[in-house]
């Protein structure tokens, strides 16, 4: 694939792996989530240029909106868990553990 495609594929993958394998703090997971969304935004922006149609030009704006809401929600969870458990360590979220 072209260099452009490689750039946001690799950004997506690396961020996804970072989301999965950062084990200590919740905030690092949220940061990786943001970078996933960023790479998706870049990919969606490139798409109308490649297909020479103007209709999908709307998509990046929608994604941006959703990502902002999502970031806000994530931060709210972070603040809530810090208020209850005293830190944002991931292993505090263990209500489901048997």
């Amino acid at each position, binding site marked *: 694939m072209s260099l452009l495609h490689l750039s946001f594929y690799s950004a997506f993958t690396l961020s996804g792996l970072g989301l999965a394998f950062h084990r200590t703090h919740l905030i690092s997971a949220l940061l990786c989530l943001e970078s996933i969304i960023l790479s998706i935004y870049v990919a969606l922006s490139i798409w109308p240029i490649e297909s020479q149609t103007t209709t999908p030009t709307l998509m990046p704006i929608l994604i941006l909106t959703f990502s902002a809401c999502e970031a806000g929600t994530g931060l709210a969870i972070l603040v809530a868990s810090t208020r209850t458990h005293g830190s944002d360590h991931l*292993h505090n979220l263990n209500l489901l553990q048997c």
Partner: protein
Amino acid sequence: MEPTLLINTSTLTTLMILITPILLPLLSKKFKNSPTIITHTIKIAFLASLAPMTLFLHSGMESIATYWEWKFIMNFKIPLSLKMDQYSTMFFPIALFVTWSILQFAMWYMASEPHIDKFFFYLLMFLIAMLTLTTANNMFLLFIGWEGVGIMSFLLIGWWQGRAEANTAALQAVLYNRIGDIGLILSMAWLASTMNTWEIQQATSSAQTPTLPLLGLILAATGKSAQFGLHPWLPAAMEGPTPVSALLHSSTMVVAGIFLLIRTHPMLTNNQTALSLCLCLGALSTLFAATCALTQNDIKKIIAFSTSSQLGLMMVAIGLNLPHLAFLHISTHAFFKAMLFLCSGSIIHNLNGEQDIRKMGGLQKLLPTTTSCLTIGNLALMGTPFLAGFYSKDSIIEGLNTSYLNTWALLLTLLATAFTATYSLRMTLLVQTGFTRTATISPTNENNPAIINPITRLALGSILAGLLITSYTTPTKTLPMTMPMSTKTTAIIATALGIALALELMNMTHMLTQPKQNTYLNFSSTLGFFNLLIHRHTPTKLLNSGQKIATHLIDLSWYKKMGPEGLANLQTTATKTTTTIHTGLIKTYLGTFALSILITLSAQTLNN
């Protein structure tokens, strides 16, 4: 009257006479078997068996009588058919004559035995099995006789069952015979599947037979007739009482293997591989046994090795395509070998249990009749002209010299002939001549008709049997009549060389030269190292590999790896893996997230 009917009826009469002592005690309670009754039964059966033999000699009539048919499966019938041909009509009187003499002797020899009735009963059972084997026309009946003689041999060798060596020897006999039985069953299976019959007529009618069933038959003969490779049981079988050795292991049972090959001879005729195998095996057996007999000190073991050597000679005759000569040798050999055993039994009892020839000597004056007959027997064994052994042995060696075969077999057989003379003469000289080396008080008394009559009867047979049989029966193949003088006298020269060698060896005894240990002496006295090497090594290896295969491989693999335990192990491993996923921690979910991403991306890449 019609000869066929007479032959069939008289043979059946003989067999019925033999079965009488077994049936009558079952039918009436008053009838008790005793040794005298059984001996008289055998005598009457012998006289009755002279009838079919005379009919055969007079008219050349052979017959096959079928009495019953076992309809086994649809296409495969097993009849109970008895074949009265040259071999069985001639064998019957000879076997019964020898058995009669042996039983009469056994009444004296085993007189102090508490279970003498059972002993005679066993001998009678053995005889019936042997005669079944001889007259069988199909392999099934032959196999019944074969197994019967094997079982009775086991029971009779281990007669004195308190003695550990006797039990070991009996077990050895059964094991070695069993290995031969594998060969017999192989050929029976091949015959049943390829020719759909077990009748010997049908099996021998085809011109060419593949080598596989013949190898089976040769293996069977090797086991039963103690050829080299499956031979150690025959010297060990001397643990049994002397009448047992005389009957089973000299005249009748050990010739069963050779008899099988004689019966199935037409199958062997055109197969050069099988014939060469018989020839080389026989030559090797005869030389090996003769070599081992040179340094034996037990009188019965010398005679046992002599039997083994003569069996090798019979096998050589079969390998030369001369089955009638092998049968002639069986017939003449029965007489003098049984007589040698009876003489040795008389000597042993008269010396109060002494079997070592180094502790005998000068018996010619103490036991004149026995030792004279011992001399006659040894001379017949050596092939002295015009005694019984000459007609068969000399013919076989002439046949060897005038046929197209490998020189090695010829050389071995001639060497074995020389050795035969050597050990026979050594035994005679050490037992009969020289100064007495026995204990000072020996109750030597041979004035019992129970000893003298059988031995002299058999001596008469040893002298006359060869002449009578060759005069009255026509050979099936013409013997070569013209040959150079050196070829004709080869057997005599070999025997003379053996005698010279024996006389030289005797000097060592008289001049008290101590034999130094050398390789040849060690080879001969340890029976060729065969017993030492094979008897520990082979069973250990076999049993170990059996344990590996049966227990370790099959049990462990089926029960531990593939069966219940293996299943349980698989489940446990899978469960352990999935338990980490079921902990409910965030990282598991994040891990699945990463996995899904990776799978999707790789699928996309592969599609593109």
